[in-house]
């Protein structure tokens, strides 16, 4: 492709192909080329991701798993491992950020990149797009598709069109030819309801939409949505790529099935929530400076208590020690508690943070144990390795094999 081909294109939309399912196939190479579904297995489980082999049978995400299995009985259904996906996502986003600081992630598996400043170093946007595809495949073993265009929404449409494992460039001069044959449902902001309204007006394609006066559209779908659709139909999308701020905090909370007044049960739940929060910190590569505990009592009054750590951490045991100290300091006398939460705040990038080391800390300390548990969880499902205190506690629904029944009084 020539440099002219990409003239005026500054926005890339990169979208992993069947992201969760692809990561699972990478982990289970024997499943390559077979239909794989990632989703809940219970009778209310829903497909979150499916390989293209499964999609060929009509399986798509958000479909009940039971229905997907009727369509494609040979599919392998896996429960999913968000921590692993988050980690892959983090590596991919880090790759993007090494190419341009203007990266706007939309979710774990897709992001916009503004590469207008990267041309001199890396070549034209098409070359950058191909480079990204090659590196993602090399480093992560999964494929992605890239749309290259002059605006965000055209770039996104282009990547969708390029799927799977492709790249499509839509230079500004070709936007109308590209857009106008598309069904109206392809436009950003057109959901089933708006689509129905438009179809009733006889507007089937984006081209139809473009040639209707903006006023008419506004009357049909509302003032703002009408002018928005009119602009999009003519390929006008002034939104810029806005790099995201890293999360400022992360956490987990649990509402008990019935109110709890046993401090031991609360402690155990705090440990569980701390482990979960720490796992998230590790999977996104953050350390927390501050730990906050949230307690909601039976009467819904809610209090929070925070403590800032001397040394930022991503270790569950350290979050728990602090959370437990904060809880114990409340001096509650068997107060009835409805919900407890643990939040990690003041997040900093682990890689960029200087870390005060501890004297005499064992070469392989608690952090290494938790990292090993992370790896085990990736292979055998969430909670494969956990603190002994949490044995017998029922697992997160849909996250691998269900543990034995909780004893009476154990929170769900």
């Amino acid at each position, binding site marked *: 492709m020539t440099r002219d081909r990409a003239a005026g294109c500054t926005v890339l939309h990169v979208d992993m192909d069947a992201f969760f399912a692809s990561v699972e196939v990478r982990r289970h190479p024997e499943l390559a080329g077979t239909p794989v579904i990632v989703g809940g297995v219970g009778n209310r489980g829903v497909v979150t991701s499916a390989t293209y082999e499964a999609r060929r049978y009509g399986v798509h995400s958000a479909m009940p798993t039971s229905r997907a299995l009727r369509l494609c009985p040979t599919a392998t259904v896996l429960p999913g491992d968000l921590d692993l996906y988050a980690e892959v996502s983090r590596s991919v986003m880090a790759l993007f950020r090494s190419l341009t600081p203007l990266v706007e992630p939309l979710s774990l598996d897709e992001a916009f990149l503004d590469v207008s400043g990267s041309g001199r170093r890396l070549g034209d946007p098409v070359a950058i797009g191909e480079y990204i595809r090659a590196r993602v495949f090399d480093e992560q073993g999964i494929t992605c598709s890239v749309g290259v265009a002059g605006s965000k929404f055209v770039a996104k449409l282009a990547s969708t069109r390029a799927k799977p494992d492709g790249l499509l460039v839509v230079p500004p001069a070709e936007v109308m030819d590209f857009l106008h044959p598309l069904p109206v449902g392809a436009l950003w902001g057109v959901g089933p309801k708006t689509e129905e309204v438009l179809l009733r007006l006889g507007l089937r394609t984006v081209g139809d939409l473009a040639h209707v006066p903006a006023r008419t559209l506004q009357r049909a779908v509302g003032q703002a949505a009408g002018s928005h659709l009119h602009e999009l139909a003519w390929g006008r999308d002034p939104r810029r790529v806005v790099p995201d701020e890293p999360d400022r905090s992360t956490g987990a909370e649990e509402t008990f099935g019935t109110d709890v007044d046993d401090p031991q049960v609360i402690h155990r739940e705090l440990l569980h929530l701390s482990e979960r929060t720490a796992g998230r910190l590790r999977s996104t590569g953050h350390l927390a400076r501050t730990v906050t505990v949230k307690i909601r009592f039976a009467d819904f009054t809610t209090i929070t208590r925070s403590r800032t750590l001397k040394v930022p951490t991503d270790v569950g045991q350290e979050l728990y020690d602090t959370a437990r100290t904060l809880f114990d300091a409340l001096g509650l006398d068997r107060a009835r508690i409805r919900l407890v939460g643990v939040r990690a705040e003041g997040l900093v990038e682990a*890689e*960029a*943070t*200087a*870390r005060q*080391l*501890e*004297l*005499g800390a064992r070469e392989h300390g608690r952090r290494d144990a938790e990292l090993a548990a992370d790896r085990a969880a990736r292979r055998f499902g969430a909670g494969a390795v956990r603190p002994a205190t949490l044995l017998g506690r029922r697992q997160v629904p849909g996250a691998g094999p269900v543990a034995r029944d909780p004893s009476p009084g154990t929170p769900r």
Partner: protein
Amino acid sequence: MKFRVAREVLAEAVAWTARSLPPRPSVPVLAGILLEVEGGQLAVSGFDYEVSARSEVDVQSTEAGRALVPGRLLAEITRALPPHPVDVVAEGARLAISCGNAKFSLPTLPVEDYPSLPSMPSTAGVVDSDAFAEAVGQVAVAAGRDDTLPMLTGVRLEIEDDLVTLAATDRYRLAVREFAWRPETPGLSAAVLVPARTLADAAKTLTSGPEVVLSLASGGSGEGILGMSGKDRRTTTRLLDAEFVKYRAIMPSESSSFATLPVGLFTDAAKRVALVAERGTPLRCEFTPGQVTLRAGGTDDEGQAEERCDVEFDGEPLTIGFNPTFLLDGLAAVHTDRARMDFTTALKPAVLSGVDEPSADDEDSGRPAERAGSYRYLIMPVRLPG
């Protein structure tokens, strides 16, 4: 009770005792200071179940007796009195204090409710008061202040015949100091954990006499007490009932490189550079033969600083990061003009120690007679990013 005493003498005795009063007493009487007069002697005592303090001064007394008065108020009043003799008289449930033209009348607390102070345990040995104060100060700086980790808020005191070893750590640094003393019975061997703050405070304020007597009662579970008595003052503290870390195992046995630093110049440079080291960010020390370059700050939205300092350095060039406070605490505690810093790797503890000056005037008695070499201050480095 009725006595007359010089204002400074009273103020000093009351102020010293008042230091150990609890800020939030668990029972009201513990906020009091007990005044007891008996045969020309005034005893000023305070107690909070953990720490007791008692100082004795000579007074002209015409009537023996005792009274319990609000401690903080008494301390403030005695400190503010004009420079005249002070007359103190117990009048029923009140205490009258007059000094020059100033007169005070204080309510007293029920003295019969006041707990009796723990008796002084049996004497363990005697130590030079200045040497004790220096050693305790050098070690206590490394103790933790987080009360949720009690074993780190203590100073380990080990007695092995005529040698005392003090050690403290907050997990990030470890200070160890040995000094000689005279045990009451030869071959005495003991190890206790003393609350660092109390120990440091006591050692610092027991220097008016030449010696401090240490007494120990390491009775059963949690009942252990350390007593320290100097001239006219004695204090007891409950011992911490916790295991101390096996610190000898942490001490590196060898080093791969070392620097000899001019303590004053290096401290000044580190203080300047540390001004831009925001909370939790390290001081970066790049050691090369002949010099060290200190850096702090770094990212675009922070200040940056850099300073070179001439040092002797023997070994492969090394870049190591420190929490600036930890480094400065250690430099301030070595008490020598030059200090030695031993390194293994950038991720292993660095050991700071004093350097004996082979100077001509050996009779310089300004410094305690101890070997500078017995003080060790380990600092765990900060893992630098990138």
